[in-house]
């Protein structure tokens, strides 16, 4: 049985945090792809923690990392607002 609560809320929480990300010379799209694959591996290593589902993956962690990546790609900051002020 899949619990939809941590999937949906983790995605929304990740989107909210991902709003504040900005691209720079050390953080670009390729590093974003690397981090997503890295977080996918970590969520597989965590197993079904903490909701004890039948899938061998931590769905809350995975949806949070997916939300971070999507939040950066769709809504992330385009430019450094500190330098403009």
């Amino acid at each position, binding site marked *: 049985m899949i619990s939809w609560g*941590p999937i949906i809320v983790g995605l929304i929480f*990740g989107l909210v945090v991902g709003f*504040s990300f900005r691209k720079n010379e050390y953080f670009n799209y390729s590093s974003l792809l690397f981090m997503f694959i*890295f977080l996918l591996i970590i969520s597989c290593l965590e197993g079904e923690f903490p*909701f004890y589902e039948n899938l061998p993956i931590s769905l809350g962690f995975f949806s949070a990392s997916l939300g*971070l990546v999507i939040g950066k790609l769709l809504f992330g900051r385009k430019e450094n*607002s500190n330098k403009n002020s």
Partner: protein
Amino acid sequence: MTNDDISPILKIFAMPVAFIFIALGILTVLGGHITPGGGFQGGAMIASGIILVILIFGLNDSPIELSHKYISIIETLGALGFIFIGLVGLVYGGSFLYNVGTDFYSVVPNFIVNIFHYPDVTNAGAVPYFNILVGLKVFVGLSAVVIAFLGFKSLTEEAEEDD
């Protein structure tokens, strides 16, 4: 304030570690009702990831930028959301912060129970929503403290250079 003298190794290392901190913090917030942790602990973990990046890159060049508007919106959302769910418990359950998602005393209408019932294998009701709102508030609050200190430090340095 920029950190030009920080090693590139640290700068390359910072964002993946911050991603892990933030995702683990969100997981701690979401599992707060059945595992050790909760809103404050998870929010502090998310803030630690953000603070790590801000300390390494500096306030102006950081890839994670929390603006004043963003901080105020999230902080307000967390506080008002907590009070709102507490008031729903007061109106329908008779006491502030009554768990309207679980409704142990069967006094809340069914449609309110369905709205505030967290879709989970546990019957936690509205408790995860409290954790989430506290987590939102804590992660921006703790990050704002460090951002304010760094801003004060850069202002002090500019004032000393002027003197």
